């Protein structure tokens, strides 16, 4: 049946030398459907068959030449390294690591030398943390029931909000809240509403703009999702494009397994910030009516095969900035039950502190940041992220990897001229 459907289309196609399918076919990189289709086209094109033979012969020379390339002398991994690895294993699950390791990554020659420092945060960081903590405590005293909170600007004029009246631009000090959580499912409706309004040349009503839903309306690249591994994850950090002093962290989680099968029950995610690197954090893009979402535990949720979530955190680093010394910026832990089991399992991922520039971030990171900044701008809730839409679209100019993305970036650019 499929043949009848495809044949008329295929018979009109011919293969040109720059068609990557030639090499994919020659190297056995096609699945059976692709291969059968391609062979049908090939049958009518003898010159393409000859190219494939040539590609195979190039591949053979490459393999044999590269096999002869000298392999560097073997490294010896010392017992110190093994010790360090074991120590890291323990805090891998949920609790804040009590053992810090400082690795002098640039002391290239003496690679076996590691210095372990136990429970001794740097003095400068401690001072910065204390300021934030004091402010947070005062906020809590002054407005009972409200979340301790500080305003966005970490400069000398740091302003105390006291309440969470404007939660979207509120950062929580790590000293008071060293963990955060986020929902594993969000809707997609907001994207549709925003897209419809912009397509008609109108500015979407702020209340219809929900940044997390906009971010999650697009699909992203996922690394290794192998059988037996229930979740794939993406963790990435870079400077925040709207404030290079802040760090932006993208966390993506995806339930693997067959589409629609129940993978996990009672799944809850917990993000644990390293207080030695992070002074304060905020979860970007959840509705203003849910100020506690980044703080209070959300209910455990089922996760289904193929379901995925991507969130962004904006972090204020400790005084002096994050240090790429090999310690973690944060740990993401996911606790869940297998559907037929009572025992709670957990899996954790680490994100090392770094100082990546936004310009060097992955296309997905750039796209997510652009969607977030654009959405925040539409909501008008956060003057600190007031960036003109065409500029925001430029951030993601190299990320338009799908028609949906290209379209949305186009709408973003065009929205610059829409009046309120």
């Amino acid at each position, binding site marked *: 049946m499929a043949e009848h459907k495809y044949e008329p289309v295929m018979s009109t196609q011919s293969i040109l030398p720059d068609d990557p399918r030639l*090499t994919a076919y020659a190297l056995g*990189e096609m699945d059976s459907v692709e291969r059968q289709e391609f062979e049908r086209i090939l049958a009518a094109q003898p010159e393409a068959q000859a190219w494939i033979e040539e590609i195979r012969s190039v591949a053979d020379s*490459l393999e044999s030449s590269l096999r002869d390339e000298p392999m560097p002398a073997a490294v010896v991994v010392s017992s110190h390294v093994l010790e360090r690895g*074991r120590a890291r294993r323990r805090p891998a699950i949920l609790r804040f690591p009590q053992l810090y390791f400082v690795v002098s990554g640039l002391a290239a020659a003496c690679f076996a030398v590691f210095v372990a420092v136990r429970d001794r945060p740097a003095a400068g960081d401690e001072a910065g943390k204390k300021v934030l903590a004091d402010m947070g405590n005062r906020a809590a005293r002054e407005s009972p029931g409200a979340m301790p909170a500080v305003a966005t600007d970490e400069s000398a004029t740091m302003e105390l909000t006291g309440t969470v009246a404007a939660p979207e631009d509120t950062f929580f000090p790590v000293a008071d809240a060293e963990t955060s959580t986020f929902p594993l499912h969000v809707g997609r409706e907001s994207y549709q509403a925003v897209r419809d309004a912009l397509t008609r040349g109108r500015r979407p009503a702020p209340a219809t703009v929900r940044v997390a839903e906009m971010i999650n309306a697009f699909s992203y690249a996922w690394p290794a999702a192998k059988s037996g591994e229930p979740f794939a994850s993406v963790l990435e950090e870079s400077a925040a494009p709207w404030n290079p002093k802040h760090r932006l962290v993208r966390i993506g989680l995806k339930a693997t397994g067959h589409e629609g099968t129940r993978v996990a029950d009672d799944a809850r995610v917990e993000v644990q910030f390293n207080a030695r690197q992070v002074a304060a954090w905020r979860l970007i893009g959840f509705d203003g009516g849910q100020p506690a979402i980044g703080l209070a535990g959300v209910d455990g949720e089922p996760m289904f095969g193929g379901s995925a979530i991507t969130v962004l955190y904006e972090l204020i680093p400790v005084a002096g900035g994050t240090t790429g010394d090999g310690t973690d910026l944060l740990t993401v832990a996911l606790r869940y039950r297998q559907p037929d089991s009572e025992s709670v399992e957990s899996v954790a991922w680490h994100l090392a502190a770094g*100082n990546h520039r936004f310009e060097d971030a992955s296309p997905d990171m750039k796209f997510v940041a652009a969607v977030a900044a654009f959405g925040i701008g539409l909501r008008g809730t956060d003057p600190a992220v007031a960036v003109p839409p065409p500029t925001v679209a430029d951030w993601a100019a190299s990320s338009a990897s799908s028609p949906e993305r290209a379209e949305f970036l186009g709408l973003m650019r065009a929205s610059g001229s829409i009046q309120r």
Partner: protein
Amino acid sequence: MTTDPHHHESDAFITTAVEQHQGALLRYATRLLHGDADRARDVVQDTFVRLMAQPRAQVEDHLVEWLFTVCRHRALDFLRKDTRMTPLDPMAAERFSSPDPMPGPDIERRETSAAVMAMIDRLPPNQQEVIRLKFQNGFSYKEISRITSLSVGNVGFLIHTAVMRLRREMAGQPE
């Protein structure tokens, strides 16, 4: 909170992984780091440290791909941190392109290999990397896609472009 009751088993797993893959990882990292073998050792070492922090069941069935992915990230971290890094120290280049000290390939084959290697060296860096991952390390397009964060289509395009260029050069045709 879980503890690992299988320390000995895990250590054997790590030790085997180190023995089997450190050479290939070091070669890959040294390339990414423009010939800086010392820094490459740091990167490879850090890769194994991260492996130890990883539950074995999570990496076991795609260990080599995982190692290359982490190794690549760490190497790029170094490059980003150290923007002053000069492209290539001439000594490092010489060390790296010196012929295999092992007795083995006959002269003719070695000459062919040297010519092919020179052609590979003239490819753009991103093509060189995927060509090596494919033909030196034997990864599939999908695995290369996950290691490099490129799409599978992109990987296929880069490999095809490189192969077609090498095909022309090997046939002695101008580009």
